[in-house]
C-alpha cells in the first residue's frame, strides 16, 4: 500500500517561485538493525527521487539509510509554463512509484 501526497500550487504567475512538497509512504529500513534472534533486517530504502516539469528534470535527490521513514521532500522552482510535474521514487526490492500534478501558469 504505497501512497504519495503531493502539494503543488494549482495556479501561479509566470516567473513566480513556487514550493513543491512531496511525502512518500516508505518504511526506510536502514539495514543496520537486527531481529530479536540476531539476523540482519535487510536494507529497504528509497534510493532516488526525481521531479520532471513538462518532461525536463528540475530536481533530483539520492536518499540514504539515515533518512527517516516516509520521506518528506520539498523544493522550489520557477513557474514557467502550464503543464505537468511528474515525480518518481525508486528504491530497494524493486520499489518504483510515480505521481503527477498539474499547474496552470498565467
Amino acid at each position, binding site marked *: *500500500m504505497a*501512497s504519495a*501526497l*503531493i*502539494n503543488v500550487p494549482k495556479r501561479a504567475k509566470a516567473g513566480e517561485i513556487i514550493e513543491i*512538497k512531496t*511525502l512518500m*509512504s516508505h*518504511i*526506510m529500513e536502514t539495514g543496520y538493525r537486527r531481529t530479536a534472534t540476531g539476523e540482519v533486517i535487510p536494507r529497504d530504502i528509497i534510493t532516488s527521487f526525481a521531479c520532471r516539469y513538462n518532461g525536463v528534470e528540475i530536481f533530483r535527490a539520492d536518499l540514504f539509510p539515515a533518512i*527517516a*521513514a*516516509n520521506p*518528506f521532500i520539498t523544493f522550489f522552482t520557477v513557474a514557467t509554463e502550464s503543464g505537468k510535474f511528474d515525480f518518481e521514487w525508486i528504491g530497494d526490492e524493486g520499489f518504483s512509484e510515480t505521481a503527477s500534478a498539474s499547474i496552470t501558469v498565467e
Partner: protein
Amino acid sequence: MRARATIVAALLVAAFAARAAEIPQAERRSGFSFMTSDTQSMQNEDTANPGMLWVLDGEALWNGKAGASGKACADCHGDARASMKGVAARYPAFDQALGRPVNLEQRIDLCRSQHQQATPLAYESRELLALTTFVAQQSRGLAIETGADPQLALFIDRGRALFMQRQGQFNLACANCHDDNWDKRLAGSAITQAHPTGYPEYRLEWQSLGSLQRRLRGCITGVRAQAYDYGAPELVELELYLMSRARGMPIETPAVRP
C-alpha cells in the same frame, strides 16, 4: 507524641490527596501544545503530516470489498465523511452484545467478522490502523464525548483505578507523571497530560503511526510492569477513562507527536 504523629499522618494524607487530584478543566492541554512549532506545523499541514498516508490507505480499504459477503464498508455505511462524522469522538463505546466497552479498532474488527464475514485484522496491522485512522479523521475538530453512556460508568471507574494504581519495578502509577508532574520534563521530553486527542497518531519516535494501546503498552513497559496484550479489557478501560477525561477537547487525528 501520639497527637503529633496523628497530625503528621493527617498532613501526609492531605498532601497525597492534593497531589493525586485530577487536572482542573481549565488547565487541560493537548499534547499538541507541548510540541515545538516545527512538529505542530507538520501536524497542521495535510501534505506534510505522514498520518495522512494512512488516511489515504484507509479510504481505499473503506471502498474495497472484503470477506465472504463481498461487501465494502461503503456498501453499508456510504460516504464516511457523513456517516462516520463524530463516531470516533464517542469511542470506546458500550457494546450490548458483549456487555463491555469496545474501542474503535475492535468495532471495525467486529463489523468485519459479523457483517463482512471477513477475517478480523490483526491489532496494530497497517490495514487496521489505516481504517481506524480514516474513520477517526472524520471527527477531526469535533469535541470528545466519550463516556456519556451511563452503562460505561463502572468501566470508567475501573480505568481510573488502573490509572491511579502504582505498578511495576518503578512502582509508578500513570497519575504520578501525568496528573502530578505534567508541567515538568522527563529525560528532556515534556511529560504531557495524557489526553488521547489524536489517536491513531504518527510518532516520530516510532517512525510510524500507532494506536493508543501501543502508547499505553509503551508507558507500562517504561515503568517496568508487564504490559497487557493488545485488545485486553484493562487497556480498553484505561482508554475509556482517558477519553472520558478529555471530554470536550477536540479530536486531532491523525496527530503528530515527537
